[in-house]
């Protein structure tokens, strides 16, 4: 209902930014790809396989990982154990020991020294990184990141952008939802614009922001540093 049209493709080793006004269907798209919602019609393919009716955990084990817009830590186990849950259940096919996977994922996001903290002791940025590590521990080939930078300072954002680029360089396809245009520009290799549940435009950041259709959709409010997602009220 909320998302229509055939959407877009994403390849290994690229970061695609998914943008669009509030209610454009960005998070719904994530839910459809990760399997939390099933579509009423249409198909979803991953590595050439039709996964439209597969359960979320099956998709995870096939290589689709994600984070949530609202952070969702397991509060009463440590950071490392949080990440380990992902490694144990989602990272099985790697053949590595879950402990090692979890350690590596924590190191990768820069939480190596906070591994034994409880989630409650982390900052907002720390929690976001922990959730990223938890998703990484499932060895995703496609990683969906829903507003990772929300609530982070510019310095923290820059740090997380670097982490995400490292993830991309390891051969993962990364799809990100972001509201701040500066982040989208710095992060994305390609941008897909959604509007009213469909894809409106696709291309590099420069192409997309000069597209008259996109500008119309945002009511002309597009510009550097604007939180475009909140326009249109």
């Amino acid at each position, binding site marked *: 209902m909320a998302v229509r049209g055939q959407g877009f493709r994403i390849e290994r080793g690229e970061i695609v930014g998914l943008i669009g006004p509030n209610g454009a269907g960005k998070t719904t798209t994530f839910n459809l790809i990760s*399997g939390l919602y099933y579509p009423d019609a249409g198909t979803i393919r991953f590595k050439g396989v039709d996964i439209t009716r597969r359960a979320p955990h099956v998709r995870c084990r096939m290589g689709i990982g994600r984070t949530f817009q609202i952070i969702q830590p*397991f509060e009463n186990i440590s950071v490392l154990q949080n990440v380990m849950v992902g490694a144990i259940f989602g990272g099985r096919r790697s053949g590595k020991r879950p402990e090692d996977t979890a350690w590596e994922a924590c190191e990768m996001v820069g939480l190596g020294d906070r591994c034994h*903290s409880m989630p409650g002791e982390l900052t907002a940025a720390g929690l976001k990184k922990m959730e990223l590590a938890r998703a990484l521990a499932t060895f995703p080939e496609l990683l969906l990141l829903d507003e990772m930078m929300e609530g982070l300072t510019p310095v923290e954002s820059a740090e997380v952008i670097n982490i995400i680029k490292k993830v991309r360089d390891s051969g993962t396809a990364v799809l990100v939802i972001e509201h701040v245009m500066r982040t989208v520009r710095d992060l994305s290799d390609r941008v897909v614009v959604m509007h009213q549940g469909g894809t409106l435009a696709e291309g590099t950041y420069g192409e997309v922001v000069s597209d008259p259709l996109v500008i119309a959709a945002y009511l002309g409010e597009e510009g550097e540093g604007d939180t475009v997602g909140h326009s249109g009220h």
Partner: protein
Amino acid sequence: MVRPVRSVLVFGSLAAGFLALAPLAVDPYLLHILILVLMSAVMALSWDLLVRTGQLSLAHAGFFGLGAYASALSCNLLGASWWMSFIAAGMAGGAAALALGIITLRLHGMYFAIATLAFAEVLRTVTLQAKFTGGAVGVTLPAIFGGNRVEAYYLVAVIFVLCLAVSLGLQKSRWGLAFQAIRARQAVAEVIGIDTVKTKLAAFVISSVFPSLMGAFYIHYVTYIIPYEAFSLNTSVSALVMSVFGGIYTTAGPVIGAVVLKILEEYLKSAIVYGYTVIYGLILALVILFMPNGLLGVIRRAAGSGRADQILRWFGGRKRAGVSD
């Protein structure tokens, strides 16, 4: 982590010693109470196994009755021996849980709770109505072990230890982690690769086999049962209240709750013949409102970081922050 291990060993061997030697020391009436307490502990602990996945089952009475009837009928109609009838009871309970779970566990937890309550009530209707169950008259069996109470005690003690082992085993394993993840954040659990439906289903089946075994034991122990007793809602009520009162999501909690409340119940039954369950309703509401972590939660808070606390924590299975060193 050396000290808690040693404490657990000491505590565990004391408890095992008590369980093993109790029949030699107590009179027949006390032994009877002890049997009832162990039965309650199995009921409460097995109910807790499922609730760890965030699912509320109100069908424990249904499985208890199902087990009692499956066992009694396999003895009376098929000539099974007592242990074969126990296996039949366990299988009947497990199969019913599997069927009910496949239908309901994909849906929101509310539907599961409603369906389990309805299931238990309907089993009674069916038992009352059907011909082969003996209807309202109930069923009768010869007493197990020729009425030897000590042997009956050891049988229920073995099942209790089995249930305890399953509970601790689940808590220490990946399953325990999966249970906790599903309970806390189901959507996250799904997208990090946990098969939530299968996990909940497994928990439901395991959790339902034990009340079925207890039903089988009960009918063999008291030799006679009627549908109203076998499928009494009070059975579900007491199991879940014992668990919640002692400390939900733990192993020690339900056992403590069963010991305290079963003894209280035996006293109350003589004071208030009908409606003693009122206490269970009251306790349930008050515990949820004022001490949602139950007795264990209160003890934990009171004990702070004391030694008793470490033992309880171990039995409770809660992992501490940064355990590895």
